[in-house]
């Protein structure tokens, strides 16, 4: 596993996402509730690009007529067939034991730390006064 500099934090507004090429793979990074989450940009079902997913809340119901929303904006609903995944882990909501989108660890770090190493920016220059997203692939 190698750590890559994938994007600037300022590239991705809250509720948005960015598709990046990291280690030859198409990765999508989401920004939700102040955190960043990286997944392979591909649904495990039929391959839809998750960058087009709707970012929705976890909606659950204890009985008909009762419902509760939580973790608003942290569930991905696939743009094709609507399968839902937890953007934090890639775990699917409907079949957590068997179906999973591939997720990758993301670390936020400052340009100053990056310049000192040990990580090297692959694709763009790093400046000390920005913060960056590192993805382990």
């Amino acid at each position, binding site marked *: 596993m190698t750590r890559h500099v994938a994007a600037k934090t300022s590239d991705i507004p809250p509720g948005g996402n960015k598709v990046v090429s990291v280690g030859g793979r198409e990765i999508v990074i989401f920004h939700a509730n102040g955190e960043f989450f990286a997944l*392979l940009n591909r649904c495990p079902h039929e391959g839809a690009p998750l960058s*087009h997913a709707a970012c929705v809340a976890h909606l659950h119901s204890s009985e008909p007529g009762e419902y509760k929303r939580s973790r608003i904006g942290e569930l991905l609903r696939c*743009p094709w067939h609507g399968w839902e995944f937890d953007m934090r882990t890639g775990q699917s909501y409907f079949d957590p034991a068997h179906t999973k989108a591939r997720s990758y660890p993301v670390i936020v770090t400052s340009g100053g730390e990056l310049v000192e190493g040990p990580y090297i920016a692959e694709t763009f220059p790093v400046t000390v006064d920005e913060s960056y997203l590192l993805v382990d692939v």
Partner: protein
Amino acid sequence: MTDVLDRTDEHATPQKDGRSRLKIIDCDIHPSLHSRDDLNAFLPKRWQEHLKTFGSHIRNPFTSTTPYPRSAPLISRRDAWPPTGGPPGSDLAFMQKQHLDPFDVEFGLLQVLDLGICSQVNLEFGAALQYAINEWQVEFFSKPDPRLKASIIVGQDDSVAAVAEIERCAALGRHAQVNISPRANEPLGRRKYWPIYAAAEAAGLPLGIHVGGYGGHAPTGSGWPSFYNEEHHSNAQTVAAQLSSLVIEGVPERFPKLKFVFIEGGFGWVPAITWRMDQHFERFRSEVPHLKRRPSEYVHEHFWFTTQPSEEPDNARHLRSVIEWIGIDRLLFSSDYPHWDFDDPRFAFKTPLTDAERRQLFNTNARAVYNFD
């Protein structure tokens, strides 16, 4: 564990072992009007003004949406909205780039859902609209991209106008099938629809029956369901009822050269209804003496089923069994592009198929049904 496969770009990749890729025939592609004004070239001024003033009216509880909101805007994949604006399916160049080219679509059958042509209540307006939409498909899609085959879509409540439109289009030879809706006022086997079948048979064109439409009845035999979740699979119930109606009323017996293609109704239900029809044929033979053969024989000679939405049983071997029970020769691949329940030809069948079976399902079955040679 089902996990993701890596890929380097968003398009289809060649097969890993270097075999040449199979060109596919996609039996269900939905084009859309970029704007209703696109029909003006084919619609008399009188009906242009009608469309602007009164709109389209089908037997549906609402005039500008479906009774069941369908989970995704315009029922479509969220990645299928053209960058040039307009609804999914309205931009040919984007359809080529996103679907036809990367999947090596050799031929695609156009299925128009816009304006509910088959179900128009104002029959004169319906006749004008069917002419316009049948011309529009050719001018906007088939001519610029000959891979895309237009369908003669007709309103089945006016069989006189439908027959005239089938004959008009057939004489020009630019369409690949006749389209009607499975949700009509009466079951499709009823005699009021037979003139349409006679015209399709005389033209040598298959009859494509794409799910959808509202014939004034609830979408299920037990009434109006509560959720889109239920309504979506009522498509299978509807086409199962229509298969039974067509066979038991003797339509294949009366029109022996006519081919029927059920589109977007899935196929998992086919074995059960066919077995049951055979069982009842033995028991109630004297009620339907016009049937000369077992219902399953008519099904196996006259009917084909497009695959999307493909069945996805938990155990993939069960899908294999269903395919064997129906017969791989009855199945035609369809993607439903650009709708949300699209099937990707690479991943839609979660069971192994032999090379020969893949050729049949993705290409040669449809090639024979639609005479693409």
